[in-house]
């Protein structure tokens, strides 16, 4: 891996914020784009101290517990009632969640 310091990112631009908002499925207003551009820049300035540390020989910790592969018996058990779950959905039809078009018209 590269030396400390070389991991620094380029400055955050409004274009970066718009790209990330698309990935996160957030329809931001132009005002929000401006505000988040400034705020993300200031917050990541703080994070750059962490990014610059030389930690190549330190393993990452994803999780504080040493538990792994927690299994249970593979036995059938009741789940949530379909009608009750669909009753909480914004739109449902014939036992399914109803959503707007996903694919373009051919």
């Amino acid at each position, binding site marked *: 891996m590269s030396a400390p310091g070389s991991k620094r990112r380029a400055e955050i631009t409004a274009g970066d914020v718009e*790209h990330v908002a698309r990935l996160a*499925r*957030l329809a*931001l207003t132009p005002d929000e784009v401006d505000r*988040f551009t400034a705020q*993300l820049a200031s917050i990541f300035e703080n994070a750059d101290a962490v*990014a610059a540390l030389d930690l190549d020989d330190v393993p990452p910790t994803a999780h504080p517990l040493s538990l792994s592969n927690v299994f249970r018996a593979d036995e059938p058990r009741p789940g949530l009632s379909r009608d009750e779950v669909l009753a909480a959905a*914004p739109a449902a039809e014939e036992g399914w969640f109803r959503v707007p078009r996903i694919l373009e018209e051919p």
Partner: protein
Amino acid sequence: MTDPGSINASEIATAVRNGHSAVETVDRCLDAIAARDDELHAFLHVDADAARAAAAAIDERVAAGDDPGALAGVPVALKDNLCVRGAPTTCGSRILEGWRPPYTATVVDRVLAAGAVPIGKTNLDEFAMGSSTENSAFGPTRNPHDPARVPGGSSGGSAAAIAAGFVPLALGSDTGGSIRQPASLCGVVGAKPTYGAVSRHGLIAFASSLDQIGPLAGDVGDAALLLDVISGHDPLDSTSIPDGIPSVSAVLDEGVEGIRVGVVSELTDAEGVQAEVGEAVESAAIALQKAGATVGPVSIPAAVHGLAAYYLIAPAEASSNLARYDGVRYGLRVDADDVATMNARTRASGFGAEVKRRIMLGTYALSAGYYDAYYGQAQRVRTLLIRDFESAYESFDVLLAPTSPTTAFELGAKTADPLAMYLSDVCTILANLAGHPAMSLPFGTGEGGLPIGVQVFAQPLREPEMFRTARVIEESAP
């Protein structure tokens, strides 16, 4: 027990088990809420009829010779990120307004099985993201000690409900200090148990490698009572510790003779820590020494990187967890002609500013090209921090530090500057990153009569030593 401010859970449970009316206790709590919660806004929902009915059922069981349990008739407030079947559960967000969960959180089932009476759902920062409860979509909670000031957050409603004498016990969740920091600012006791000690089944997820449910209470004994009820293995949570944690109530009064207490230098002397807060930690250390503990300074060098690591890991996990709010299965939908636009408009309309900011931070930190530089580095800092704690625990049994660098601040003081708000968590986040238990308890007051909290850290599963230490500090508090 005529003063609602002095209500105590173990006294109520004993009285109810001996035939004192649980309905009367619940009515007293409801009266206190009616008298002052318009001003404080600790609760988002209070179900008075359900609470009275539950209390009446407890009274009937006692009359029939039955023992309802360790929390017989004790009113409990629930943070509104805990699911209760059929009851409004908003997480402080417009995106879940009107949603009624189809199942109940394990912790709620456990307090019910112990005879407790849920009173209502308490206010919180939206999706538990915040340190002041000002990020609730339904308006802020105010600090009962000074309503111009915040109660802390994100469990600000739970902490305020206890400080105001509305309820003796409340449940909160703590991802970076969300139980301990509001407990500190409101002058109550709050504990974050070892990661995995309490089931999270039915807790709405924020950052899954950090989230943990814990008790808030008026004193250390009541917090211990509630922790003993809610801890234990749950097959519905794969991060639940198989053997649970030892009982804390049983050892509460064993004292600190021979316990080695390390005062964390990086947190006590840190820039931004109010002088009166640092002095309270020193006084608590002296009190422990007088009670037979040995006290010395200890260093956690990686602590200086804790905040930056936390504000990469927590938003990264949140951005993934909150992907589920897509307008399809539950909650809000803002319609559009295609599904991607529907998702984006729903989320833009349903989430508040702080939640959007965290999703943006997390998505950026996980995006192509930055994953290892930010998220990966933060996970390595987490390893360093755990190593530093392990080395500190070679010489010490528990560690002492401030909970919050400051006493309660005024509403609006930090809302314009996210980084200043994030600094509220600088002393608490370490326990979440390490997965260790930590608790806050009041230790005197500072300028303006505002409560000061001190924090006790312990090794995983060593809640007994942590509570014994807290009990001694409590007994010597000014």
